């Protein structure tokens, strides 16, 4: 149901639907704008309106009751839209409005009294004030309005807003609210195109050269340089690089070429190619008026010369003839004043109600903000995963079976993680550059991503299978008798790796031929007899239990005793060719009651940063870490402090009552140094578990002293320090730990992912 109104249109009564009337009004308005600078524009508009009215009445005569949307659209299609004239007139080289304008400024030099006629096209009609551009906008027209005001390309303004999204977001919103909107005639005609004339691959370099007004060889060289370097370094690289011919690491070494290559491809997809004369002019940033079009045409023709010289020179002549002719028109017509020029663009339709505008803008801005944050976060995650994937790819041999699994891993990396990033970048740039919609790009990206998704799922399934089996091997360490105090230190593993080319922090380290893991846990228990005992257990997963057992057996780990000092290896290595199947070590030290232990700095510094896939209840078997009664030491574990084993658990020696201790009794000091202990003991009565969290090593009188084992279950992830007297380096170490902890955590998450 639509409302029909009657209009008097060029002397005819036309019944027309309201929506169709709006369409018609917009169309006539756009024509008026287009011919604004033209002589006799009223006449032209009148003629066209008359013709439209005639077409309408023909339709009405045929039996249509009233003019509907599709009637108006059909008529518009027949008369043509201003964009169509643009194309056609540019091609025709006929007198465009701009041409008349330029000739009128020539004319104005002859006239004496016309100061306002010094107006020339493109000199910034609305330079004096800042407007939001109502005609050329993506969101609020702020960027293009600003660009117009500052005389720069809107694309640049938009890219700045996108790149500095966080910083400029509120600037944008505020400008959106306070700056009035107006159709600003752009004085910028320069746009980024791909050059059709000077292209090697996609014309990107040519377009950039034209845009920045530099020689075309400069961007070409920049794009080609990494490729050239890569080609040359490739063969030579083999001498100093022991990598097999696998090309994965080259992505890293050639990250520059990767970036540039990706940039090129994105621009190739996103930037439109300049084909028509007016597009070519826009590419070079010249004004689209008759002279420049003629020049371009001439240029084209000169190119063509070698092919058909005779023909082209004829055309050139006629083009020149046209130019002169058009100038003549312009001069004769120039007498009519151009006062309309300055008011060429109609004043913004309505000021609008201020408050409503603000609310609407804030509303839009809110969603824009949320959307932007979400998109950025998603993009960041994807890019991060992609980056991590690329980094980890060289070591996929440790994780994956060869063959299809590595194919699937690559396709996951490229398609599942890479495609969304690429698609987002392409979308942004196309949006900024104002490229027309192209559904095929979306289809292609969609299909590739689905492929990536399928790869991802089968990769996960494959990895899951790799970890199905489990095994553990326990080895006792024969200890020579220790008096009453054991010191535990961590050494470098028997093989040292200096300057391994990639270091993931402390948990995991890749060297050229092996994966070094510090996946070692330390557990302290109460001894059942009166002497110290130590043992270590090697755990592994595998496709089958048999494979897991082999892998566990192949893990080499040593614990050595020197007097009363126990040296633990910092880790173990998995040679290239072997697989990483979650091998890890648990060292267990049993302390008899009344005996003491000191954990050296080298042990506890790395507390709470460890890397294991194995401490959750999964389907995988033999994850027996015996931490049923242990707890993670999350708080500060003081360096070089003596601890003593009491019937109730391990306790810092400082907190024991010395007198009582001599008598063979285990009692806490009467007066505690800190208030928190008082509080804790109060809490103790109310809730035992609370205290356990607050103070893990407290002596608990009410505790069952016959509880068999595991008082402390601490996990030691030992240092990567290269010298044993590491204390000096401690601070440096600590800062590095912080950096690496993120990666460790992500690797941990990665590991957990395998389990799910």
């Amino acid at each position, binding site marked *: 149901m639509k409302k029909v109104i009657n209009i008097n249109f060029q002397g005819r009564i036309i019944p027309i639907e309201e929506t169709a009337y709006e369409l018609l009004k917009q169309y006539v308005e756009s024509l008026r704008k287009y011919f604004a600078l033209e002589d006799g524009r009223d006449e032209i508009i009148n*003629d066209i309106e008359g013709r439209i009215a005639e077409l309408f009445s023909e339709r009405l005569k045929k039996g249509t009751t009233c003019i509907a949307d599709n009637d108006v659209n059909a008529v518009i299609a027949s008369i043509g839209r201003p964009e169509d004239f643009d194309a056609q007139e540019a091609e025709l080289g006929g007198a465009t409005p701009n041409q008349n304008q330029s000739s009128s400024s020539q004319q104005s030099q002859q006239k004496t009294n016309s100061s306002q006629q010094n107006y020339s096209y493109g000199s910034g009609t609305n330079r004096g004030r800042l407007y939001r551009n109502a005609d050329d906008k993506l969101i609020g027209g702020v960027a293009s309005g600003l660009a117009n005001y500052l005389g720069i390309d809107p694309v640049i303004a938009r890219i700045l807003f996108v790149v500095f999204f966080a910083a400029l977001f509120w600037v944008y919103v505020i400008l959106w609210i306070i700056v009035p909107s107006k159709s600003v005639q752009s004085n910028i005609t320069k746009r980024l195109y791909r050059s*059709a004339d000077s292209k090697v691959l996609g014309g990107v370099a040519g377009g950039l050269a034209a845009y920045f007004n530099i020689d075309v060889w400069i961007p070409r060289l920049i794009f080609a340089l990494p490729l050239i370097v890569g080609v040359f370094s490739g063969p030579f690289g083999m001498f100093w690089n022991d990598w097999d011919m696998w090309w994965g690491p080259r992505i890293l070494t050639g990250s520059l070429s990767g970036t540039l290559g990706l940039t090129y491809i994105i621009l190739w997809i996103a930037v439109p190619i300049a084909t028509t004369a007016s597009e070519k002019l826009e590419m070079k940033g010249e004004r689209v008026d008759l002279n420049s079009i003629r020049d371009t045409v001439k240029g084209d023709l000169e190119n063509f010369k070698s092919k058909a010289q005779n023909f082209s020179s004829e055309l050139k002549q*006629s083009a020149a003839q046209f130019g002169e002719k058009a100038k003549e028109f312009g001069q004769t017509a120039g007498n009519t004043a151009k006062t309309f020029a300055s008011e060429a663009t109609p004043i913004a339709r309505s000021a609008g109600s201020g408050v409503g505008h603000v609310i609407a803008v804030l509303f839009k801005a809110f969603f824009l903000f949320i959307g932007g944050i979400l998109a950025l976060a998603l993009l960041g995650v994807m890019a991060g995963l992609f980056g991590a994937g690329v980094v980890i790819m060289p070591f996929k041999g440790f994780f994956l079976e060869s063959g299809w699994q590595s194919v699937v891993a690559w396709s996951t990396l490229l398609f599942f993680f890479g495609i969304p990033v690429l698609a987002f970048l392409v979308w942004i740039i196309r949006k900024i550059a104002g490229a027309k919609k192209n559904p095929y790009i979306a289809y292609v990206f969609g299909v590739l991503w689905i492929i990536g998704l399928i790869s991802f799922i089968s990769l996960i399934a494959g990895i899951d299978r790799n970890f199905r089996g489990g095994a553990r091997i326990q080895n006792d360490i024969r200890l020579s008798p220790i008096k009453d105090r054991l010191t535990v230190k961590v050494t470098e593993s028997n093989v040292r790796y200096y300057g391994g080319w990639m270091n993931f922090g402390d948990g995991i380290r890749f060297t050229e031929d092996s994966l070094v893991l510090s996946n070692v846990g330390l557990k302290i228990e109460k001894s059942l007899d009166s002497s110290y005992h130590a043992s270590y257990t090697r755990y592994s997963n595998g496709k089958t239990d048999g494979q897991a057992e082999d892998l566990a057996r192949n893990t080499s780990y040593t614990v050595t005793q020197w007097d009363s000092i126990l040296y633990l290896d910092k880790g173990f290595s998995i040679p290239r060719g072997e697989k990483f199947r979650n091998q890890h070590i648990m060292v267990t030290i049993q302390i008899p009651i009344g005996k003491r232990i000191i954990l050296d700095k080298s042990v506890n510094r790395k507390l709470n940063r460890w890397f294991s896939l194995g401490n959750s209840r999964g389907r995988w078997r033999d994850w027996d870490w015996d931490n049923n009664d242990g707890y993670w030491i999350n708080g500060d574990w003081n360096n070089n402090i003596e601890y003593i084993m009491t019937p109730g658990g391990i306790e810092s020696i400082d907190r024991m009552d010395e007198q009582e201790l001599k008598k063979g009794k285990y009692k806490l000091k009467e007066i505690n140094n800190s208030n928190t202990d008082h509080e804790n003991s109060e809490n103790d009565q109310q809730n035992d578990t609370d205290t356990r969290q607050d103070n893990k090593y407290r002596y608990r009188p009410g505790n069952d002293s016959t509880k068999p084992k595991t008082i402390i279950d601490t996990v030691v992830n030992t240092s990567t320090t290269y010298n044993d007297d590491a204390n000096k380096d401690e601070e440096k170490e600590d800062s590095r730990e912080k950096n690496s902890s993120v990666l460790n955590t992500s690797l941990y998450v990665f590991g957990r992912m395998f389990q799910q």
Partner: protein
Amino acid sequence: MNIENTQSQMRKGILEFCIFSIIRRGEAYPSDIVEEMRAANLHIFEGTLYPLLTRLKNADMLTYRWIESNSGPPRKYFSLTAKGEDFYKELEATWNELAHAVNALANKKESLTTTITPGNITINPENTTTN
């Protein structure tokens, strides 16, 4: 250089000539001009034609008069002025020369190499222009 570009270069030069040719045969109504040109496979928007006619009229090449129509308000019919007639003559001469030259070149069958004698290989297209 692609084919559409070349084609549009060629068309642009002849648009006015075509319009003159149509109007010269007698007073013409713009939409009839468009119809005729479309029938001859020269596509043009009315939105392009009207401004062109107005410009030519302002340049005294064309004139018009109102003719009553039986279906509504009077219509504008365009005709050539004396100045327009002269202009048409010039265009026509140019066109004929051009058409002749192009046809002659386009229809020529023998290849250039057959006309080159061993001693005279310096023939190059640049020297054969009519400039």
